[in-house]
């Protein structure tokens, strides 16, 4: 999969309370969550996300609460990919589990700037910054985690393992 888009840049320790404040957690509807994504950190996020759909951040992105609403809000805002120096571990799991690619790359995070245009080849493991011409190699994820991503998330992966898939594409309760 190749993702081409512009970058929104954030710093270290972006916590889940600023990604989606708890006052909006009385719902799990993704479109409602997306309306309030990052509103306490960056009032312009929604406007930015219309033309820039890759987030690049420094250390410990997604620290704090276990709320899966955080990657859901980000994904439902149109963001296709997050690159960070490091991720908080629960956020990383949650992102992978819902099929939002999360890439650890300290080099890329240090050298990519707000507004840069990236071309990210997830299969080849290469991040190309077409604004600066720099390229960064991504360490491959463990095979098991790649399998979760290629299955379209942890629920679909589990259905495959359990043999509970059906023709509905995951929308029925069967």
């Amino acid at each position: 999969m190749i993702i081409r888009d512009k970058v929104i840049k954030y710093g270290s320790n972006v916590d889940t309370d600023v990604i989606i404040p708890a006052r909006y957690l009385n719902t799990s509807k993704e479109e409602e969550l997306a309306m309030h994504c990052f509103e306490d950190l960056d009032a312009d996020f929604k406007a930015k996300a219309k033309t820039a759909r890759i987030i690049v951040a420094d250390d410990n992105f997604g620290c704090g609460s276990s709320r899966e609403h955080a990657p859901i809000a980000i994904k439902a805002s149109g963001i296709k990919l997050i690159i960070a120096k490091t991720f908080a571990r629960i956020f990383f799991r949650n992102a992978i589990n819902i099929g939002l690619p999360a890439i650890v790359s300290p080099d890329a995070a240090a050298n990519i700037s707000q507004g840069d245009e990236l071309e990210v080849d997830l299969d080849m493991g290469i991040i190309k910054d077409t604004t600066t011409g720099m390229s960064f190699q991504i360490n491959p994820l463990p095979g098991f985690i790649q399998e979760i991503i290629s299955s379209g998330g942890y629920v679909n992966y589990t259905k495959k393992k359990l043999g509970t898939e059906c023709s509905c594409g995951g929308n029925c309760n069967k």
Partner: protein
Amino acid sequence: MAEKTENRISQTMAQKILAWHCGRQYLNTGELVNAKVDLVLGNDITMPLAIEEFKKIGVGGVFDRDKIAIVPDHFTPNKDIKSAEQCKYIRDFASQQNITNYFEIGKMGIEHALLPEQGIVLPGDLIIGADSHTCTYGALGAASTGMGSTDAAVAMATGTAWFMVPETIKFVYSGSLKKWVTGKDLILYTIGLTGVDGALYMSMEFTGPAITALSMDSRFAMCNMAIEAGGKFGIIEFDDTTKRYLEGRHTRPYRVFHADTDAKYFKQYEINCDDIELQVSLPHLPSNAANAKDLGNIVIDQVVIGSCTNGRMEDLAIAAEIIKGRKVNNRIRAIIIPATQKIYMDAMEKGYLKTFVEAGCAVSTPTCGPCLGGHMGILAEGERSIATTNRNFVGRMGHPKSEVYLSGPAVAAASAIAGRIAVPEEVIQ
């Protein structure tokens, strides 16, 4: 995967408990394993999503109705219609699936105080919870960690979860605690040393003579905040204090694990408790720890004593000792939230609740409420609260331009009397 003869590997608590739960004798750090879990936990925020995902998996029933706990504690008693709908959804699911450990309002407590109190989480357990403070149960010698709703959903269906076997940082505490200092001060001080990601992906083992001398309530407060250093587990080995706590409480057998004396640690910290003063973590990171007595004049608007970190009997006893016979400062809203119904009753019998109400505190039924900016004590723009909670991120307790200072119960109680951040000596003559 189980081998007949495995080469011995010296192991930490995390390695041993994970190995046991995937039928192995030994595990190397960095291995990815699928392990059986003893309990899957969720609350009124995370469980609705988990149930939606669970239904998509298509297994029909949960793997074991005794090994799931559902605790509506965050926005409860229901704060608005949407919260009520969320609670109804999880209540209906608990009823359909005949979940043993569902706790209704009136019997409910804050999950991480309630489950140990009820003997539902035990030493040697492998526990996952759709709540980041699930690491609290490490205080019993369990491997317990927070995950998201989808992980909880898969675990409810299969009884398993995947783990990366973590490295471990060992924290050795020596010396003795100064007057009023509790586990909360030790952990704020510790996170001040590690930073908020110093234990990222790792297990934290808390050990040493000062931990041996520490109360169970203080141990829960320490392990509760392992996540604030980025930790996966916060673990204290089973000892006589754990054993006494479990007497008359546990409803099933448990298994005790000890770290090997030659276990390999990623890093080791030596911390002398003789040097640790009452701590306060300044906005907006739990790692901004400072000595409370050095803070100068920080005027506050609200005091919160409660939460899964510090809403237990030890905390209420300390607060009552400081507040008794005094009045809450006129400008202050002091909110006290016993973490479970049992703690509420015990505090009533000890006279603490009377002390609090006479002093001008509001005493609430158990809820996470203000800790996460849910309800029961939200801050307006520019307001400040000192709280015995666990996070002080931007907007955590309300308006994005409000501030949260974290402390233990002694500083919070003294601050309620003083009207500014204070240590007990400043209000007790």
